């Protein structure tokens, strides 16, 4: 037993977590916020009533017991729509992050290992990144049928090149590392070499980039709904709510405020977590206890 072991009792996972939490209150708040949004998305039916039912008699009614945030221009429950709107944002954000990671990592690793393939992929990503992501997403969304899947795909495609470039640059560094040469020297090659030695050593930056992709996908989905592309108008989404509220902005500005605030909070939480993750994974910045 070493000296350090005898001097301090071994920290339990709980005490370690509490220690980190004291050092990083922002991280804890963001985690709690994110967890809250996840729970709201999952348990939406328990938290709110029908978000779709139109009741023209109740249009633009102020907050009441039946609709605590009031009603919109079609008499729909704003609170219910905001709660259900969380679902679209979370679903799009997480699906896009996962898809971008899978596609970006596979293409990026290929580009990092194959010289010619790498050159071709890089020129393609250059071409794609020359067009603004939202413009590209609108183009893809209008090519396909309306629906959640369309939105997810339309947002994923313009996000992939960024991840590809990142993964490629990391792979170019990793494959020069001595432990990769050592793995080759014991006879490892091909897929096992990529899977066991290259991929795991690229995951840090990939994770950080995935959180940014998630945040920008949440915004992009709101933008698409706001512009009326992708999702049909009756589906409750924050972007759609803001588009509806735009017409009543002068008389009922709060209708715009609710979804806008929720959107900002969610994106802020995801982005701050991404920053913290990036700091924690950066060996130059991390005091042993970030995150």
């Amino acid at each position, binding site marked *: 037993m070493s000296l350090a072991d005898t001097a301090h009792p071994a920290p339990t996972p709980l005490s370690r977590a509490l220690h980190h939490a004291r050092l990083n209150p922002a991280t804890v708040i963001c985690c709690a916020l994110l967890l809250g949004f996840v729970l709201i998305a999952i348990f939406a039916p328990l938290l709110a009533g029908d978000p779709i039912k139109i009741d023209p008699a109740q249009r633009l009614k102020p907050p009441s017991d039946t609709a605590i945030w009031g009603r919109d221009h079609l008499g729909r429950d704003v609170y219910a729509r905001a709660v259900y709107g969380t679902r679209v944002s979370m679903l799009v954000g997480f699906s896009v992050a996962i898809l971008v990671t899978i596609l970006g990592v596979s293409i990026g690793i290929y580009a990092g290992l194959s*010289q010619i393939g790498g050159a071709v992929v890089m020129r393609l990503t250059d071409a794609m990144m020359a067009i603004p992501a939202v413009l590209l997403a609108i183009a893809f969304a209008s090519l396909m049928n309306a629906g959640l899947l369309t939105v997810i795909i339309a947002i994923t495609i313009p996000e992939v090149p960024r991840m590809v470039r990142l993964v490629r640059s990391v792979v170019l560094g990793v494959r020069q*590392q*001595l*432990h990769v*040469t*050592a*793995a*080759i*020297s*014991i*006879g*490892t*090659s091909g897929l*096992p070499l990529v899977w*066991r*030695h290259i991929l*795991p*050593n690229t995951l840090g930056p990939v994770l950080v980039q995935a959180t940014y992709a998630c945040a920008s996908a949440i915004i992009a989905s709101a933008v698409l709904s706001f512009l009326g592309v992708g999702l049909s108008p009756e589906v409750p989404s924050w972007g759609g709510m803001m588009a509806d509220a735009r017409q009543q902005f002068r008389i009922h500005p709060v209708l715009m405020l609710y979804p806008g605030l929720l959107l900002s909070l969610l994106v802020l939480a995801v982005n701050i977590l991404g920053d913290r993750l990036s700091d924690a994974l950066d060996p130059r910045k991390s005091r042993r206890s970030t995150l």
Partner: protein
Amino acid sequence: MSNIIDVENLSLEFLSGEQRVYALDNVSFSVARGETLSLVGESGCGKSVTAMAMMGLLPKASARITSGRIRMAGTELVGLPERQLQQIRGNRIGMVFQDPMTSLNPVHTIGMQIAEAVRRHKPVSRTEAMQRARQMLDLVRIPDAGNRLTAYPHELSGGQRQRVMIAMALACDPELLIADEPTTALDVTVQAQILELIADLKAELGMSVLLITHDLGVVAATADRMMVMYAGRIVEEGAVERIFARPSHGYTAALLRSLPGHGTGRRGRLTEIAGTVPRLDRQLASCLFAPRCGFAEAACSASLPPSRQVEAGHRSACIREAAVFDAMRDNDIVKGWTS
């Protein structure tokens, strides 16, 4: 005694853009079964390149073998398809690298990494491979091997990591171990332990060792034969005790002189070799060491000195070989090895 490796007239160049670097020039040597051959020379002289070329580990885009052969027990390795090379790497030739801090994958346990070496070449189950990994940890004298299997590289000291690396390289009982400066990154006491371990394992497993080093002390302690390399050429080759007793190349003499004095208690400035290693971007038909050599005369720069036999099994590519030996007679190290 049959040879495990025969390298014949190996020449190799690196291309980067328009530049060419002639890294190896007609390198020939062989390693006999069960012997320790040491390759010595200063940084950039081609020691590691020789080792990497033998393993086929050089980047194919920039390194090109322009002539020569590398044969392993009769199998030609130059131009061998990658798939067949993989069956040799780690299985018949094991390699240990200079820096144990970075030669292990940080994300896998050391048990998994040793087991991986086994599973690449032997049709064994996961558990059998792990058992083998445990045996190997025992073999390289890591205490408490059973528990250490699940340790990650960052939990081990430099010396222990180098032991793990040796375990990985030897997991499939290779016939040849290439140790590329295995002790350079370790501190002196650990160096001695690792060298002792390699020597013990060589005797236990009956393998051959190609030990690359720039430390003549290491050579004297462990090797049977040695080769001195300079600027991509082998300049002197022979049994360790003969080269120390009868240095026959200006460069070998300079290396011996630059060793800190033994036992004389002499203090003061260490002797160095003036000048630097030449750039290898041109092929020169002359002795490349001549510009830095104290024994050089006009003929040294006029033509490439051929490798000549000085005594049985001892060759040198130096035309001033007799003058070098005369001048070195009084050297403490040489005197120590003659008596």
